[in-house]
């Protein structure tokens, strides 16, 4: 374990959405730390709250029907209580955000160069010329071949990979200490994915920034992450260094997730799946282990009443105690009975 300074500390974060006059927690008691010079991957299936977590950090959640309670500490200050004005000073300057779909995240009627300069206008005192030069430098840095020409183009004239490179150029324009990448490679094909990930890591190593990489692609996680947080139904259920997580997964959900990756060497007739669905926000169990309904063969006594995170080895945290009694063999025999 290297000792690195924490950049962003999230303590007991609850984000709730209002649905018909009742608030439901989309993020429930999340504790996470993003350190300097690391890639923290956040994985989980659709609707588990990965993107909500990201938008809560930068204050992008829709106002009016959302409440955020808890602490998001950056430089000792709690971002949750920040006003829009104060947030604006931090967003873009200290925290860069990379969106999932670069086509919709770029303004269709603004030239690429102007969009890159946008962040610089508000956070630096550069002159027009300096900003132009910086924009070209950034485009060059993210591997765009003809920066002068691309800067004058509109987003629809670029390919998907180039657009994502532009998004990254925008995010790193002010050299942020923290980068939040919300599924940056989902909209791209596999070869471009690899290029974009390499680029992200390369930039991260230059600036010692911390990257929070949100994804549902375990292949991506294995390739680039240093630590992994697994989320399920709005909670972080397991945090571990990447090797530890892949080699020694503890929580039943993590194990099922890893088990459901299609593998050629394993001789299975069917793809391994996890039974059931993530409960929707309105039907979320009020207390107890949120994963319990999907592993019904594990006896109720195995779960904690109020599941907590337990550190089982340095840096490896697991929520609830049900992992101790969970095993796959049991699941397979159960399925055999059902069939």
């Amino acid at each position, binding site marked *: 374990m290297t000792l690195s300074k924490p950049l962003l500390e999230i303590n007991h974060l609850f984000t709730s959405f209002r649905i018909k006059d009742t608030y439901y927690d989309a993020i429930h008691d999340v504790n996470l730390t993003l350190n300097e010079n690391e890639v923290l991957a956040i994985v989980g299936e659709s609707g588990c709250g990965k993107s909500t977590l990201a938008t809560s950090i930068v204050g992008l959640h829709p106002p009016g029907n959302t409440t955020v309670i808890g602490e998001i500490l950056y430089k000792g200050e709690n971002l949750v209580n920040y006003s829009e004005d104060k947030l604006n000073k931090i967003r873009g300057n200290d925290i860069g955000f990379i969106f999932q779909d670069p086509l919709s995240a770029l303004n269709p009627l603004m030239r690429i160069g102007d969009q890159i300069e946008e962040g610089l206008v*508000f956070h630096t005192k550069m002159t027009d010329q300096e900003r132009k030069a910086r924009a070209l430098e950034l485009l060059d840095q993210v591997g765009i071949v003809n920066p002068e020409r691309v800067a004058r183009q509109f987003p629809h004239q670029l390919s998907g990979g180039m657009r994502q490179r532009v998004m990254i150029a925008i995010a790193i324009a002010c050299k942020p200490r923290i980068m939040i990448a919300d599924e940056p490679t989902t909209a791209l094909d596999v070869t471009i994915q690899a290029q974009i990930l390499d680029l992200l890591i390369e930039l991260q190593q230059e600036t010692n920034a911390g990257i929070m990489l949100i994804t549902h692609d375990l292949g991506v996680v294995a390739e680039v992450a240093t630590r992994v947080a697994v989320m399920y139904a709005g909670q972080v259920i397991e945090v571990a260094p990447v090797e530890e997580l892949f080699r020694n997964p503890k929580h039943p959900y993590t194990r099922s997730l890893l088990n459901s990756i299609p593998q050629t060497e394993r001789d299975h007739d069917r793809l391994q799946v996890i039974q059931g669905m993530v409960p929707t926000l309105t039907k979320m169990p009020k207390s107890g282990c949120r994963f319990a309904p999907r592993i019904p063969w594990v006896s109720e006594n195995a779960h904690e009443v109020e599941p907590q995170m337990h550190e089982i080895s340095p840096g490896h945290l697991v929520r609830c105690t049900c992992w101790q009694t969970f095993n796959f063999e049991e699941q397979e025999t159960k399925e055999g009975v059902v069939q």
Partner: protein
Amino acid sequence: MEQQFNNDQLTEHELESTPATGFRVIWREFKKDKIAMGSLIIVAFIILGSIIWAPFIDKEALMKISLLDEFAKPGENGFILGADQGGSDILGQLIIGARNSIVIAIAITVITGILGVAVGIICGYYGGIIDNFFMRLIDFIITLPSTMIIIVFVTIIPKYDVWSFILIMSAFMWVSTARLVRSKALSESRRDYVSASKTMGTSDFAIMFKGIMPNLSSLLIVELTLNFAGNVGIETGLTFLGFGLPDTTPSLGTLVSFANNQTVIAEKWWVWLPASLLILVLMLGINYIGQALRRSADAKQRLG
């Protein structure tokens, strides 16, 4: 290496053909649609002609009553289009009247445009209480019987001139633009690029007017053009009813209202017909232009 190759290819491809954008699409649409093209030429001719010619006409001399020239026929006594009851030149009145109508229409369109777009974008972007407040205000203004209130204003304002007329009209006409813009801004504000701008720390004002507004431009061009067509008729209509500009100002509405008299409508056609035709041509022409613009803003309807 491979990327270099792709890049060169892209450049070559671009030289061959790029999809037409912005004003080139509009121009192509006009070239395909002969009526719209004709309308554009005629409307431009009328607008420029009246605005350039009007300052050369002596208004005092024009409106002086000379009984000798009462209802002079076209061509008589040097009146190209004849004279009205007071012996005033029809052509002169036509030009000044057209100029007034057009200037009023432009002013109202600009004022309602600015106000409507600003309120619309602010409502659409912020939503919530601000949106609710303005939308209820707009609902209220729409339910008011605007014509009657305008007539009341016209009679009670002591020093009544072109500018007070424009302001009274604008107070009632910005609401429809605001509603339209708000509905589009509402959907546009929820797009990712707005969130992306926010994550860069861009201020709300810059996001609204530099980010969102250009994306509404196709809607705005069409809306403002069609508003302009409607506004050309406003001054004429109210003057016809007797509540428009002061009597001493030559106006198309005054000329048309001569047709209230049965003998005039039956025998003195030159008094009211040119003004009526001018209004007809202007409004139709602007509508045709607006429709061509509307088509060019929507790829499915385009002819070109």
